[in-house]
């Protein structure tokens, strides 16, 4: 009997290839005659371009072409708006996206101005260095509040202000709730985030075959199919004349779902125009400037409660930094609005934001995608309220939980998928209880912490809760085929950037078809293999594509059972699929290999019966009516060096509920990676801009990613509350690790430094900043 794969801790199929350096990434694509690209990028955050001198560059040996915006002709177009604004109650949206190369004005440092194509990257960079751009510098818009002042420079003059968007959403009537409150907490909170810093930077290789009239593009993207569709339209080609391949991708985290980046359209354009293959691989310096960021939000927030600690309402008004353009619409701040409410009953909610244009790199979703900001606000307000009420902070959370029988729970405001924010299912108390048990909350509070404090050690504990909207539509698809060898192929359109799809999708199909994992081949991210899909983002791969794989595999199973019943002259109900065979239950001798069934479904002579299709194969699509809502708790014990304010994380616990786990090993890995990025966000990573809009730390020397010595071993626990929205009951797990780490640090550090009366209202922190907050250091 084949063991069930679903739910097993199975090692990832793809890892031997990845770990031995035998996986293809974009930079591994080498085509004879290939040219290489370098860009001349803006040195200024905000300036008018008054002249560009290309003479020296054009005459350099090995330089094939040099293009400015003027040279692009009609091809120069502002990029499409990827996500339109949601149909919320009050929405102002000023769509501004960038053309491929800056024309008359640059709006952030690193914006591409000139494209150089040469025989090697070295020569291209040499030529780019000789290009002289004449600038008329303008004041840079950097700070959020400063961007709104009367005399601020304008990133887009024609907008008339720096407001990219203004959105108001509400549930109930906050003002009335506030009037009835026993306690109102108001704070100003700042939450800043950094760059995703994927191990593999962006990269594009394009090859146009003029004889076959076919364009192939290798792109380190999370969304190959929409890229294919867009490129086909741009170049006047049929979608079948364009193949986009996202091979192995060394981390996406959100910024690689942004499109179109200028380089993504310019490289294929040059390949067609020059009749040569063209490659551009983003270097790390470019990645800091030109791949999208996430960044700061400034919140003025209020929570109104009864004296018993019941939440009456929340009001949150914030400024969101969207950078120089707003190509991804409002996904990040909408996520902030929607995730803020967390696992709590909040009867009345007023939420308003302004997304502001600044002279900085564009902001689009990065793992968590605005959810961090919202969770920080809510969890901080609850911590402060607990202190004011003299309540245990966890008890305050507990008495406000949405109860299991209250699902589906509708929060009424509009979510990023344009449906009313509705939690499908959840059960929060067991998550809290398990996290408390695993971190040893009571023992710590009663014995351990007092003992360590008596020794003079600054030790603190924290525990925070969150929900995460995951698994949104619109749809994904998959084709499952049993080949005549008996091997199974699964193809799907979503790309893979480390999520383990090669394994988890195989597990789903293995169970349906009774075939061993090793006999399943998976193709993702190649539009030549599957033509329909959206992309890998918003923790949706397992939920949406995974459900499509499940449905397609079930359809193939039905076909196989039907065929086997005929072949074995038995009833369909008596057939089981085991180890690559269809057999009659209880009569193991009566069996036929799936390979035989596949072969007979694909005859070379004779006839396929009317009303049937050839092949033991099926294609299915899955489009959820709305997203699934995962939840969790993170807890931490931390020690602070009382003199240097350096940290040591003594224990870190995550309890997570993303429904049934397809592969616990993969989910654990997702959580580990997320927590690492969360720790980076909370205490190490920050993009630091000066007042002229220059990014001061565009290298891994100064932009501090947490290393293996900074990320502790984690203890993970899982609860499994199934989703009613898909056949597998699964919810997304991609971002959970990263989301609540900021408020967890804040709570645990306040506890560790309790004598100082410190109140933490900002993330990220650092030893220097902590010392400053506690000691009031800098005069």
């Amino acid at each position, binding site marked *: 009997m084949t063991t069930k794969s679903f739910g097993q801790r199975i090692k990832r199929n793809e890892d031997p290839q990845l770990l031995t350096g035998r996986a293809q990434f974009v930079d591994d694509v080498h085509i004879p005659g290939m040219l290489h690209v370098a860009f001349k990028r803006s040195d200024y955050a905000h300036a008018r371009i008054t002249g560009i001198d290309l003479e020296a560059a054009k005459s350099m040996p090995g330089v094939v072409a040099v293009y400015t915006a003027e040279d692009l002709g009609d091809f120069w177009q502002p990029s499409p708006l990827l996500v339109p604004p949601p149909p919320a109650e009050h929405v102002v949206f000023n769509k501004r996206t960038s053309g491929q190369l800056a024309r008359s004005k640059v709006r952030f440092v690193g914006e591409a101005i000139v494209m150089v194509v040469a025989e090697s990257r070295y020569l291209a960079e*040499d030529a780019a260095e000789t290009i002289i751009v004449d600038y008329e510098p303008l004041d840079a818009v950097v700070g959020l509040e400063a961007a709104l002042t009367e005399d601020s420079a304008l990133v887009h003059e024609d907008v008339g202000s720096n407001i990219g968007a203004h959105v108001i959403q509400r549930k109930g009537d906050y003002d009335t709730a506030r009037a009835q409150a026993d306690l109102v907490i108001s704070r100003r909170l700042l939450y800043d985030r950094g760059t995703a810093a994927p191990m593999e930077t962006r990269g594009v290789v394009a090859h146009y075959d003029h004889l076959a009239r076919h364009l192939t593009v290798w792109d380190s993207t999370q969304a190959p199919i929409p890229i294919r569709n867009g490129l086909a339209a741009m170049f006047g080609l049929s979608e079948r004349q364009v193949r986009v391949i996202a091979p192995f991708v060394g981390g996406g985290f959100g910024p690689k779902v942004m499109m179109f980046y200028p380089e993504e359209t310019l490289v294929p354009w040059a390949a067609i125009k020059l009749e040569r293959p063209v490659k551009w691989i983003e270097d*790390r*310096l470019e990645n800091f400037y030109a791949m999208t960021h996430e960044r700061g939000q400034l919140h003025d927030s209020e929570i109104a409660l009864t004296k018993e600690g019941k939440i009456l309402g929340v009001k949150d008004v914030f400024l969101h930094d969207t950078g120089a353009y707003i190509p991804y619409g409002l996904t990040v701040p909408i996520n902030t609005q929607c995730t803020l409410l967390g696992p709590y009953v909040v009867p009345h909610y007023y939420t308003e934001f302004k997304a502001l244009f600044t002279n900085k790199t564009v902001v689009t979703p990065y793992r968590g995608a605005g959810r961090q900001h919202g969770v920080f606000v809510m969890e901080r307000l609850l911590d402060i309220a607990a202190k004011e009420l003299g309540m245990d902070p966890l008890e305050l959370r507990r008495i406000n939980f949405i109860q299991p029988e209250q699902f589906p729970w509708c929060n009424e405001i509009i979510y990023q998928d344009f449906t009313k924010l509705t939690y499908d299912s959840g059960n929060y108390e067991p998550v809290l209880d398990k996290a408390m048990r695993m971190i040893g909350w009571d023992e710590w509070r009663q014995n351990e912490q007092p003992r360590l404090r008596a020794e003079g050690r600054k030790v603190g504990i924290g525990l925070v809760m969150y929900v995460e909207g995951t698994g949104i539509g619109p749809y994904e698809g998959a084709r499952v085929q049993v080949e005549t060898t008996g091997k199974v192929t699964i193809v799907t359109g979503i790309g893979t950037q480390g999520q383990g799809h090669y394994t988890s999708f195989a597990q789903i199909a293995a169970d349906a078809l009774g075939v061993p994992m090793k006999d399943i081949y998976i193709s993702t991210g190649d539009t030549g293999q599957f033509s329909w899909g959206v992309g890998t983002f918003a923790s949706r791969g397992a939920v949406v594509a995974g459900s499509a794989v499940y449905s397609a595999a079930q359809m193939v199973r039905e076909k196989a059972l039907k065929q086997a019943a005929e072949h074995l002259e038995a009833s369909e109900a008596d057939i089981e699929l085991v180890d690559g065979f269809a057999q009659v239950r209880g009569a193991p001798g009566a069996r036929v290999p799936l390979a035989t069934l596949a072969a007979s479904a694909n005859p070379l002579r004779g006839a396929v019966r009317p009303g049937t299709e050839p092949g033991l194969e099926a294609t299915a699509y899955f489009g959820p009516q709305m997203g699934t809502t995962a939840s969790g708790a993170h807890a931490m014990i931390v020690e602070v060096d009382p003199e240097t304010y350096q940290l040591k994380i003594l224990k870190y616990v995550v309890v997570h509920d993303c429904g049934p786990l397809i592969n616990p090993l993969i989910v654990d890995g997702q959580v580990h990676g997320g927590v690492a990025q969360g720790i980076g966000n909370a205490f190490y990573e920050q993009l630091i801009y000066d007042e002229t809009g220059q990014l001061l730390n565009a290298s891994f020397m100064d932009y*501090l990613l947490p*290393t293996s*010595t900074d990320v502790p071993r984690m203890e993970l626990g899982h609860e499994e509350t199934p989703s009613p929205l898909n056949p597998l009951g699964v919810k997304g797990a991609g971002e959970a690790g990263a989301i609540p780490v900021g408020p967890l640090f804040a709570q645990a550090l306040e506890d560790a430094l309790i004598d100082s009366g410190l109140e933490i209202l900002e993330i990220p922190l650092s*030893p*220097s900043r902590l010392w*400053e907050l506690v*000691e009031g250091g800098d005069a």
Partner: protein
Amino acid sequence: MKPAAFDYHAPTTLDEALALLAAYGDEAKILAGGQSLIPAMNFRLAQPAILVDINPVTTLVGIHAEGDGGLRIGTMTRQRTVEHSDLVAARAPLLAETMPHIAHPQIRNRGTFGGSLAHADPASELPAVAVALGMTLRAQSTRGERDIDATDFFQGLFATALEPDEMLIEVLIPALPARTGTAFAEVARRHGDYAMAGAAAVVTLAEDGTIAACKLVYLSIGDAPVESHSAASALLGVIPTDEAIRAAAEAMEQDIDPLGDIHATAAYRRHLAKVLARRTLASAVARARN
């Protein structure tokens, strides 16, 4: 992030290398371990016309015991070799203690002992330790050889006493006097990062337990290694109690004027300097007593 074009020479003898430096002077840059130079070239912050790769010059490699109890280390000795050397551990424990703080093992595998000194990054560990231990840096050119005291060698931000045609060939480390203890500590954001502040302390006790000699030298506090003479004078001739060490750390403050940067404000850096003074002096004293 590709370097600008350059001419590349790989001499196999010291004489050939020195001849190239004599011929090209300022235009040439010596490539030793390349752990600072190559990134700077890839950023095009450094664009030397000529690279003189001295990796083939094997005579510059080695750790030698000197008759007086000191050490002589060839400049092309890899940092990792110094870190793992029993001879260094026995004769220059301060150096042995410091080595693991220099970046990461991968970098120390390539990075050289002399390269770090000649690069004179004020945030790097070896220049401060060179001053603390009173090392002598031996330079050679086609014009001849000369010895430079570490105190005179480091002249500012990436600036040394070396002339453009000179190469650092070896470093002499004097023997530690009896009843001497040493200590190194630094505070970095992550292990292996350039420190926000670091300190090396060398303390020699007289037979009566008072301090006979003391050196406290900082990295990442100024534009070169910063020696606190005030801390040293505060301790000279006194019994190094916790109180005395605390007072020395207070006295140290007048010797420094640190700047702020994105990782540490000036005030925090000043605070760290005080903490490090206390920690390194106390542990150097404890070791001197053993």
